[in-house]
């Protein structure tokens, strides 16, 4: 295999582009794709304050590194979810990444701040763990971006993530979600602007980017995610991609070009009548927001009426707390 750019030995093939790349030109390709996504969807400007949602996995660390390479200043936010050794390891990886590059990493620890962890809290609240985790992360990332005065919340969703969510929402015709599945969600009604600059990169490429750049990331899958539908959709799409390279890209970007607009009105109705949560002040259509209801049902507690600010916390004895 030879690099499509320099004809030197290639290290990776990207079949949907019918191209092979050496290490140097693969990194250039990643830069090009992220820059194109930022510009094509008008995601943000160099003067904007960016907050990256950091998990310690390949995607969030790759986008934080890519933004830095492209000249953007961005802080990171890590949310500790109390998933035993997995959370401990992911925090260590996120901290090491930030320290090595002298980047600012904010931390919120759910067990010590809200008194519950995802494995036990989701069971008590009778929610699927991935659902409780996603709800908690969305709430805390939004809150931290708003309270911290950030212009944009950046997430590491890649092409595979977006194609898989689209696949699931289409399979079940969740039309209320389809109009919101965009690379940019504008700020409104107390929600921060959210962007996904990795939508033009498959997750095989974000993983390769980390390996080539020498970025240590958490390889193992979250123990709570085993068997979830999102992963099965990804596997199904990868089987299609194997037979038809470019299928994931065509599915997602074809949706954006030709179909997303049909669902915009229904999705906007979902956000009408938003008020503020009587408990934490977050935007919600109910009296109490979904996160505060989760905290209550999970046997936790809210820290105070003013909500939580994203400041570094001492994790103390809750780290390595055994999962019961």
């Amino acid at each position: 295999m030879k690099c499509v750019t320099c004809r030197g030995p290639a290290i990776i093939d990207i079949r949907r582009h019918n191209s092979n790349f050496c290490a140097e030109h693969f990194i250039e390709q990643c830069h090009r794709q992220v820059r194109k996504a930022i510009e094509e969807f008008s995601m943000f400007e160099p003067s904007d304050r960016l907050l990256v949602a950091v998990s310690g996995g390949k995607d969030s660390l790759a986008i934080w590194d890519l933004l830095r390479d492209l000249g953007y200043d961005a802080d990171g936010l890590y949310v500790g979810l109390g998933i035993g050794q997995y959370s401990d390891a992911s925090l260590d990886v996120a901290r090491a990444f930030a320290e090595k590059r002298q980047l600012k990493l904010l931390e919120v620890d759910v067990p010590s701040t809200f008194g519950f962890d995802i494995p036990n809290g989701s069971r008590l609240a009778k929610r699927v763990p991935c659902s409780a985790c996603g709800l908690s992360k969305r709430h805390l990332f939004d809150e931290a971006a708003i309270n911290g005065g950030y212009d944009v919340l950046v997430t590491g969703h890649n092409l595979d993530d977006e194609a898989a969510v689209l696949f699931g929402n289409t399979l079940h015709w969740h039309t209320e979600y389809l109009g919101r599945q965009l690379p940019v969600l504008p700020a409104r009604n107390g929600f921060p602007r959210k962007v996904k600059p990795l939508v033009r990169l498959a997750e095989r490429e974000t993983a390769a980017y980390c390996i080539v750049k020498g970025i240590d990331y958490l390889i193992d899958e979250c123990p709570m995610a085993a068997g979830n539908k999102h992963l099965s959709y990804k596997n199904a799409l990868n089987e299609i991609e194997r037979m038809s390279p470019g299928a994931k890209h065509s599915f997602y970007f074809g949706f954006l070009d030709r179909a997303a607009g049909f669902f915009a009105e229904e999705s906007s109705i979902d956000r009408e009548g938003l008020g503020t949560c009587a408990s934490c002040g977050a935007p919600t259509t109910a009296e109490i927001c979904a996160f505060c209801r989760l905290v209550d049902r999970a046997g936790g507690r809210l820290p105070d009426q003013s909500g939580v600010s994203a400041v570094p916390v001492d994790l103390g004895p809750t780290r390595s707390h055994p999962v019961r």
Partner: protein
Amino acid sequence: MKVRLHNPRRDLEIEGPITIINLLDKLDLNREAVLVVRDGELVPGDESLSDDDSIEIRPVISGGFR
């Protein structure tokens, strides 16, 4: 050769020579869902591995509910 797999983590001994593409087919792994790493570096699909090699087949799929 020594082959390390993840989720769950396990080690296999596979006889060489064999190309990466044929190895992944033999293990019934989808090329779109893994990368092959040797000594911290990516190994391209057409490269032939020998009995002396030690590689890691790294999954790239991640994520729960988004």
